[in-house]
């Protein structure tokens, strides 16, 4: 009998120990007020909105490898998944504006803000650096009768084009809708779980066309299973010199999957400059450049604070106008 009592005692000891640990997990973070001069005075936190191993996560990790050395400081990634980047934004909002918290931003965040009701506003951010740029390319199956973008537009007028993309409200979806509106044609949007699924369904001829990043369909393009019709960019891609842009065709729809880093407005300008320098130097290093090449991206993906800041504001403005005109935001 005594043995059992002993065990029960130990059991309750274990339980209370576990409870203490749990309560510690929930404890708040220690906030320190830092002066710009001694930046960085603690490790830099990069907040992402996506799961481990995805494009955003991998890009951020590759960026940090050399950034740590350049800033002589540690840096780590905090994933905050939820509500199209809104969770990440509200987390960043709770942090001091001292440059130690950096948000990895994508069109997902910008579209989420443009829909309204997000934790932060576009004016709350200052762009620090652009990390990748990946224009959306319109792909069709190589066996399909659509040889040019005009063929596709014409076909869409008879019967809506089955156009694949990622989830509803994403840059894929909006770009498809804007393309249809500007080109005066019709699409039936088919959402898929990711780029790989879109590509397989296009090769399998389940859908007529899709907006993909070049890399997502590159192998199938080279093996002759897919065909590119147009690029949603202002200028032709160096990798696809013969593929027209929509702009050339008089269709005003330029969209890209861009990624970059931002900090909250109010962060001292010297701090932003230090961060920018650290990031840019890291991205010039072969470690990051090899990654870009491997992902099928151009070295011109990288841009500094001024250019990136202007770009996110431009994308936001366009996203907002597009969502309002489509009736998806007020």
């Amino acid at each position, binding site marked *: 009998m005594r043995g059992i009592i002993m065990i029960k005692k130990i059991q309750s000891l274990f339980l209370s120990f576990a409870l203490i640990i749990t309560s510690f997990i929930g404890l708040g973070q220690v906030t320190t007020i830092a002066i710009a001069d001694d930046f960085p005075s603690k490790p830099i936190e990069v907040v992402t909105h996506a799961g481990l*191993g995805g494009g955003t996560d991998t890009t951020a990790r590759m960026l940090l490898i050399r950034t740590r050395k350049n800033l002589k400081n540690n840096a780590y990634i905090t994933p905050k998944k*939820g*509500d199209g980047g809104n969770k990440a934004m509200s987390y960043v909002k709770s942090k001091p504006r001292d440059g130690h918290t950096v948000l990895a931003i994508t069109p997902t965040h910008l579209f989420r803000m443009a829909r309204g009701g997000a934790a932060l506003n576009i004016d709350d951010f200052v762009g620090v650096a652009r990390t990748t740029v990946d224009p959306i390319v319109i792909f069709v199956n190589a066996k399909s009768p659509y040889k040019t973008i005009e063929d596709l537009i014409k076909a869409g007028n008879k019967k809506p084009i089955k156009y694949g993309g990622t989830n509803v409200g994403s840059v894929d979806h909006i770009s498809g809708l804007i393309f249809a509106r500007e080109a005066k044609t019709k699409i039936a949007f088919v959402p898929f779980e990711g780029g790989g699924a879109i590509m397989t369904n296009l090769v399998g001829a389940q859908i007529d066309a899709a907006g993909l990043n070049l890399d997502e369909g590159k192998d199938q393009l080279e093996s002759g299973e897919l065909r590119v019709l147009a690029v949603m960019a202002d200028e032709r891609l160096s990798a696809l010199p013969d593929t027209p842009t929509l702009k050339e065709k008089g269709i005003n729809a330029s969209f890209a999957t861009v990624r970059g880093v931002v900090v909250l407005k109010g962060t001292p300008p010297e701090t932003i400059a230090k961060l920018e320098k650290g990031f840019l130097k890291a991205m010039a290093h072969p470690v990051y450049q*090899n*990654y870009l090449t*491997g992902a099928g991206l151009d070295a011109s993906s990288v841009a500094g604070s001024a250019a990136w800041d202007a770009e996110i504001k431009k994308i936001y403005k366009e996203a907002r106008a597009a969502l309002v005109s489509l009736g998806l935001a007020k």
Partner: protein
Amino acid sequence: MELISKITLILDLTTFLLILGSTIVGVLIGALPGLSSGMAIALLLPFTIYLEPNQAIAAMAALYCGGTFGGSITAILINAPGAPPAAATAFDGFPMAQNGQAGKALGMAAVSSVIGGIISLIVLIIFAPTLAKIAYKFGPPEYFALAIFGLSMLASISSKSPVKNLIGGLIGLFVATIGVHLTTGISRFTFSIDELFEGVSFVPVLIGLFAMSEIFVQASKSELLLERIKFSAIKLPSITEFKNCGKTILRSTGIGTFIGILPAEGGTVSAMIGYNEARRWSKNKENFGKGEIEGVAAPEAANNSATGGAMIPTLALGIPGSATTAVILGGFQIHGLRAGPYLFEQQPDLLYTIFYGMLLANFIFLIFGLLGAKIFSRISLIPRGFLWPSVFVFCLVGSYGLSQSMVDVYIMLISGVVGFFLRRSGFSPAPIIMGIVLGQLVENSLAQSIIIFDQNLFMFFTRPIAMTFFILTFLSLFYKPIKNLFTERKRI
């Protein structure tokens, strides 16, 4: 034979040690609930730039193999599947451990995992470019039919009452509807909780339903006298037992390799369907869910053969066959490599390194698993009062660690309480898990099919693969009543 001569690729000391280390790390990470091999590879990616590309990719592939096997250890010993693909292993593995057969369950898991893993690797190296094309044949209608086929076994997935199994399945399907709907963008049952927009995370639910509810079950028993410790628990399965499971292992390997190739599905669905089919064809149907050794062999062979299967489209087409292979593809990018048809033509050395790396990983975890079984199975000898409180800590850390979110911890606790009461009223967690695993697939693929078919559901008749699955579903549901009808007629 080019293939055999290429074994030298992994025979240098660094590569060998890397694969050995990655496999063991994989097994341990796979065993810890909430830590997955995909996550480990993602975290280690940036460090692999200092390795040779071939070594780095082989190490990642080995970690993937080890991680898939590792999940079974905790599933069997403490009813906390270390990773989602091991969920089905807990159905019979944990009851076996409770019956004092932990060693048998672990030994069977190791052997069937290795058989499944190796056969799927051989399929990979010989048939990958041809088989990868299956991925293109599977559109939303085919996935829908496959999911329906899987769901058709809901009523009989556990030996509990069929009605309760169906209700459990519906609960699972309901949980799968939480979040933003794929084709309409409408959020359902999210109650403005940001974390729920992308759906309820599967791992916390899994940990809650299995391990947490088990803690409550154990706690409610604590008044009873301590059970006599069974030293037979560390015994490994006998040769006859292995032989008896041979058919099940082969069937599951086929299922696992095939489902692994499909980009949208991987080890978890393979293991579920492998378990279902094992039960369907088994002579000891009633024993399933109570500690049937075939019920351990089937999901383990299936989920490990799905690793080889998942590598097929990943390497041959550059399309990830599972969440972990998606991260491995990220590894290709970091090293400036490309998967796809080019790999087979231009980089055969890389391909062979991956093949041998995974093969070696399978042998390593076989040895580790069999030797370890004797040691790990002693966990089932630890007095409950010590074991379960520590499992509780695992549950908390495991559900928090995944995305560092307290919401996941609450989901785990709620699932634990719900699971406890459901189990008390005679429900099995198996159909609930099945409903969650297949719920999103069945709904999304139907919604996509409807758009593709221009709202005309009769178009399903134009899809031979989908129709095959529908016919199989029909037969599995109505085979018995029809057979009974005929036998009755004869009697008259």
